[in-house]
């Protein structure tokens, strides 16, 4: 059988990578190509070089080395028993693609993952080799994210950290029982073991860097993980709980959520419908609340409904506020920053601006309106110099008043 062309394989192996949620290229050490032989720079903030029609940022060349796999995870299109079309790149081919895209300023770097071929170690070696060629032979200073294989030899996983800016190890599913059922070849302990090892290595490298200027960098952008949402029965409360344990235990930079997509050729154990995308969005919002707004995981869980899931029609912050109405209204002229951050409709930036402005004037509702996107949403929850909500927080229909009207699906106006 003749080998497929590069462009055909690119189509197959990019298509297979589209279920990966992460494409971030931020948070790594600054570097540039001045004084070197190759190309590339990272300046802290990642750059989205394009956006796909699914609204996601394209910042890295996100590819699978191969979609052949000896594992048989039901939610995965590349599982052994799927009869999807298979393809494979060599490390050198990936390197060439990455460089020629990078030189034209299409990408920030490479996000490489792989199906498991031959053995976990063999696969991990190929991933590491790709990064090695880029770094050592081409002096590439752009971003590299490697998806590591938890079952591989820890020494190989460690090498990945030496070349990559970020490494990720997927937890795959929010509950161990889900993992047992849908990813029979995987093992929760092994996955968390690998995350733990990675955490130690990152910390150790940081310490060494403090003491010796020339200590090698090790995954300066840290580690992240991805969880599939909606393939099993786990509730949002389960998911939020799992995410916060992962943040605490493994110092993860990010937990990504990927709404289970209908996968061509899916196995019959999976749900037939995809979960609403909005569920994924609500989970990201709750993640945000924990990372930037000072909410405890338990508080996010308080915002869930009887079935353990976050409401879909309103955001988790509003859901929490409606459940704890006694905490409102908050006085914009006196309240602490923490309390202001709890007001639905006030973002971190608006809160900072309120705090800065009130040193100069006593804020009126109009002043607040200038600092927020929508004062309608904020109004029932605050007091200002000339404003006091008329027991709005006691109204039974408050939720209906504030929930966004069901929008028409956005149509493309070509």
């Amino acid at each position, binding site marked *: 059988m003749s080998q497929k062309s590069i462009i055909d394989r690119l189509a197959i192996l990019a298509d297979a990578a589209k279920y990966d949620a992460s494409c971030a290229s931020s948070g790594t050490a600054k570097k540039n190509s001045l004084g070197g032989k190759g190309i590339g720079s990272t300046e802290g903030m990642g750059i989205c070089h394009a956006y796909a029609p699914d609204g996601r940022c394209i910042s890295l060349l996100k590819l699978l080395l191969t979609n052949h796999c000896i594992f048989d995870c039901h939610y995965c299109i590349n599982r052994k028993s799927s009869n999807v079309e298979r393809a494979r790149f060599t490390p050198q081919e990936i390197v060439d693609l990455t460089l020629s895209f990078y030189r034209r300023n299409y990408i920030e770097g490479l996000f490489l993952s792989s199906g498991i071929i031959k053995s976990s170690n063999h696969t991990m070696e190929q991933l590491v080799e790709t990064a090695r060629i880029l770094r050592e032979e081409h002096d590439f200073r752009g971003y590299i994210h490697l998806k590591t294989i938890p079952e591989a030899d820890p020494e190989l996983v460690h090498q990945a950290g030496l070349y990559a800016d970020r490494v990720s190890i997927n937890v795959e599913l929010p509950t161990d029982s889900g993992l047992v059922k849908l990813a029979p070849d995987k093992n929760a302990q092994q996955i968390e073991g690998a995350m733990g090892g990675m955490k130690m290595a990152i910390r150790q490298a940081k310490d060494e860097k403090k003491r010796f200027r020339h200590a090698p960098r090790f995954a300066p952008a840290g580690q992240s993980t991805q969880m599939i949402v909606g393939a099993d029965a786990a509730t949002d409360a389960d998911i939020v709980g799992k995410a916060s344990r992962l943040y605490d235990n493994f110092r993860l930079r990010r937990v990504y959520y990927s709404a289970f997509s*209908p996968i061509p050729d899916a196995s*019959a154990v999976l749900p037939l419908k995809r979960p609403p995308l909005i569920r994924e969005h609500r989970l990201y919002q709750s993640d945000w609340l924990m990372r930037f707004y000072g909410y405890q995981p338990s508080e996010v869980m308080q915002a869930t409904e009887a079935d353990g899931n976050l409401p879909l029609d309103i955001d988790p912050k509003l859901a929490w506020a409606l459940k704890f109405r006694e905490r409102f209204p908050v006085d914009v002229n006196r309240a602490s920053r923490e309390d202001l951050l709890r007001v639905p409709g006030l973002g971190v930036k608006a809160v900072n601006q309120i705090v800065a402005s009130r040193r100069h004037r006593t804020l009126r509702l109009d002043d607040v309106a200038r600092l927020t996107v929508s004062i309608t949403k904020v109004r029932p929850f605050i007091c200002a110099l000339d404003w006091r909500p008329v027991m709005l927080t006691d109204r039974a229909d408050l939720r209906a008043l504030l929930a966004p009207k069901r929008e028409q699906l956005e149509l493309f106006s070509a």
Partner: protein
Amino acid sequence: MNALQPVEHHTHYAIHLLEPDDFDAWRERARALVQCDVPPDRVTWIEPGGSGDLFADGERQLPVRSDGAAPVRASKRFVRLAKNAILHSDPDRFALLYRLLWRLQGNPQVMEDKADPDVRRIEELDKNVRRDSHKMHAFVRFRLVETEEDGPEHYVAWFEPEHHILRANAGFFVRRFANMRWSILTPQESLHWDGEALVEGPPAQRSDAPSGDPTEDLWRKYYASIFNPARLKVGAMMREMPRKYWKNMPEASLIPELVAGAQGRESQMVAAGSLEFDARPETLGAIETALHACRKCPIGELENSSVMGEGPRGAQKFSGLMIVGEQPGDQEDLAGRPFVGPAGQLLDLHLERVGIDRSSAYVTNAVKHFKYVQRGKRRIHQSPAAKEIDTCRWWLEAERSIVQPKLILTMGASAARAMLGKTVSITKARGAPIMLSDGSELWVTAHPSYLLRLDGAAREEQARMFDADLAAVKARLAELAN
């Protein structure tokens, strides 16, 4: 303000700037104006190519500053914002900056008042410029141009920024592409880097830049493949990648087609993904009917009939045991009943020996159709593939959810796979229960047809083990019944 008032109070000043983005030049003039106490409404700022207003022909000479003038004050924050805001294409930006600078002299805290309209405006300009710069970092697309044999490769981009940001952002491209030879052409000016020095050039036209690059086909293929049509979010895309940038991005021409095709691609994915299974049948009868029509896997396409499980009707007669075999064989297929052929007879023998009443158990197969190859007149049994087992599992689960066994005994690796979704080693797994998520127990053992293939001591050994497994199941069933 100043003790000396050298300025005629009603003079208007028209200040012509030589560059639209030269902060230092603006600052020098603004400082002089403040020191001469010229209020903002008496100054008109004119950028190159820009038209003035009513007062454009006002005094061009800056007033002469008195020696005793107080130093001009500007907060750090103002300077930081002004440096960026001056790159904006709004012709009123210079006046705004001057007004703020003027107000800073009387009230050094002006910039802290976030609700002040001038402060909000300069922040807005700054934000727009930062956004445009960021989009330039992102959306510049270099194309490789043909050069003479040995010269270094030359990459050229055509870009149309909204604001005067080209020079201010040169550093980004120098740091990133330090060892490349590149040029960025814009309608206002151009920049060239040869690996060592940066040279500014005159305005360019689109036709000065190359029109294509073979790599763009690969890039477009990547762009079209990486997005998930099941999650179309056109609004989000448009917000981050406004249409005005599209014309210089090779991948953007695909967007209408991708969006239009997404729904079709998604329904294809859903259709393929769900294998068109509808809601689960709710009675055994409904399953049986539906099985006849099932063609979800290639086995269903063979000439065969489907074989449904069978067991006691009525709860009293049901012991709670479900026995799962691999698939119907030739005789089962002809009879339309499970376990009637040689393997079934052997099973009956062992069940009897151990004391399990077959008629109290629900007996079925992991795969519902007979898989075989035709050799002359004979149909030779074939083991189902993992994929076929996984597909047919849909039916087994449907039966299970109606029968609700307390204990499931699978015989052979295929049947175990149907329950667990993975291939297990019978040798390792037999003899102890595996807990299932609904609280029921799974026990695994070998398939009786395996025994049929053995002779002598090996057969006796396996038969003993098979009986032992059955006996353990029987004992466990008795425990569960209490």
